């Protein structure tokens, strides 16, 4: 263990208020408080635990987006809703706020509701179109956080 180890941030996540430089560059797409909780769980300098969590999330997200495409083409609204819920859970746990919010919208649209989930939307067509738009948006949001997180962990681009 030497000081030359590439450590993206100081081992000082406990002082979340101070906002370490690296975390602040996550911008508003990642909730630093939530994400720091994960970082606190790391036992080592390599951040093996959070790294594997984030990697797992990447895989999960890509697979889910793919399934959402399928759901759109088969017009399976309930499937789209549950996929939205599924990805919402893991993105929320990582503090990926933008992705989470979009996933929640997909969940609502899939349940034939409006974006807040309060009003019913009777038209399948409207819901599917909304999901389609939101899916495009959430992909962009995901790519943004993916870029940030990959830089943070020093992943090489796929």
């Amino acid at each position, binding site marked *: *263990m*030497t*000081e030359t180890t590439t450590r993206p941030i*100081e*081992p*000082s996540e*406990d*002082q979340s208020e*101070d906002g*370490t430089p690296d975390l602040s560059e996550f911008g508003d797409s990642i909730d630093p*408080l*939530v994400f720091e*909780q*994960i970082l*606190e*769980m790391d*036992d*080592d*300098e390599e951040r093996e*635990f959070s790294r*594997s*969590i984030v990697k*797992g*999330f990447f895989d*999960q997200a890509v697979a889910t987006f793919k399934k959402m495409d399928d759901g759109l083409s088969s017009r399976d609204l309930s499937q789209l809703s*549950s996929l939205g*819920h*599924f990805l*919402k*859970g*893991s993105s*929320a*746990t*990582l*503090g990926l706020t933008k992705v989470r919010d979009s996933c*929640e919208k997909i*969940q609502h649209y899939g349940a034939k509701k409006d974006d807040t*989930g309060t009003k019913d939307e009777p038209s399948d067509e409207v819901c599917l179109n909304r999901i389609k738009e939101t899916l495009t948006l959430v992909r962009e949001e995901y790519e943004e956080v993916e870029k940030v997180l990959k830089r943070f962990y020093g992943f090489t681009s796929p």
Partner: protein
Amino acid sequence: MLEDPAYEQIVRWGDAGDSFVVLENEKFTKSILPKHFKHSNFASFVRQLNKYDFHKVRHNNEENGASPYGPGAWEFKHPEFQINNKDSLDNIRRKAPASRKPAAHPVSEEPVQIHQMDLVNVQLVATQQQLQQLQERYNELSNHNALMLQELINVQKTVANHESIMHQVMAFLNNIDTQIRDQRRNSRANGLPMFDQSHSHDASAAGISPQHFSPSDDRQASPLQHAQKLLEESYAAEEHIEQMNELYRQINNAVSTPPSDHGARNGVVPLSSQGGQPRSTAMNNSVIYPRMNADYQDNVYPAGQTNGIDPTTYAEHYSNISYPTPATGELETADSRRQYAADGRKKSIAIDPGWIRAPQILLVEDDPTCRRIGGKFLYSFKCAIDTAFDGLEAVEKISNGSKYDLILMDIIMPNLDGVSACRTIRNYDSAPIIAMTSNIRNDDIDMYFTSGMIIRPEWIPTSRENLLLTKSQGMNDVLPKPFTKEGLLNLLEKHLSHLKEKPPAQTKSSPAGSWHSPNQLAGVSPTGTSIADESYANTVRGHQSRGMDGYPHRRTVSEMSGPDEVVNDTNKRQRMFVQSYGNGVIGSMQRVPAG
């Protein structure tokens, strides 16, 4: 029949009248046998005759071996079978059972076998029933055993509560001790002959025999205070009765002649007191960090380096308070500190809520990310974790007899959702079930309640709250997603309070903390379990006190505890003053408040 002339050519009495002769074998079989028997088989008739002890009369010794009744004739003879003697017929019986049995057996063989099979079957069934009964009995006993264990834990808790009362008594006595000491000191300073009286009073109040008191007032105070000090230290960390015993051992070490009561307690479980020691030390460590950080991080280090306060870096940290990092060997220090920092971080996340035993938590979650993070959080709270992928797996685990202290249940899951799973689990188990969900909608709430799930009203829209509270009848909890460490910990502590070491200790430690000087933080450090540690602690305190107020190291022993410290210092100064300057100033010093 034999006398019937119609049959004379076929069967008739023998010439001597003591036998009968079948003359025409063929005719006899065909015409006579069917009239009297169910068969027309001459061989069977002969066999029957043999059974009744009739015997064929042989004429081998006579001329040509020929029968006097003709070549085809069969003559049968029985001792009791005589012509014109019907009375003796009663004596003609089947042969005795001994000889009959072999003949009878083959006939009834098959029924007997069936009967035996039945018998074996019955026995088998009976054995199975017995086995089942044993099984039931075993289960019953297992349950009883579990209950007994629970009871044991309760008893332990009770004992722990008693110990906490002891602790309070100690604190109270300590106050009295202080007051009396001050009083005595003042009176001695005044030259009043109150000393002995107050001394003995003091001793009896403290429950320690008089001979413990060493000549110096300050040192008199220290054993008691030290004991109390140790007691408080461990209260922050205590987990088991063993540690209680450990405490008492410490007390006994501190107080040279142990009071008989404590001695007896120690005598009961000497082994466990040994075992308790390392744990208590470890616990102390983990408990201290947050407090230390809170107190020192602002003024000791620039942000980013303070988290690693570690027992081993104690001295270094304190030296760093006084002096900035030395220029020489800077790299090395930085390295080692970083290492400490890493260590410290590792330990600081391992929050130990002080469970009596590791709570068994079932985490039901289909999302791998949430499951892993949730599991990691729980792990850091010293919980034993089991996970289930969905409601179905959770139900299976519980119906298979797994017992959990708490179940964290995601709501929307494949195969079996959390609400249905909860409803099913309620058939087996009453463990608290916490809904983990990110969206609580109005229509969800009813579902949770009917399923027996627990909901926390804070997370419910206000409009529903009244309805909810009415419905919930005191049960409520939801862990909103994404859950936070704090949220999870609060929830665990709330629902698993019965597994906590003892909640009163927590509340009690805060007043204790409040009247302790900042120096006390050092005292709560990993010291206090052995003599060797003690000396180390003194060293640390030495650093500390030098840093704080420049007092000589030697003092620290008496400074160790609580509110008296200020008093002690004042008194010490006062006494030195008195000694130096004599009675002249005593009058004014007397009015120094006792604390």
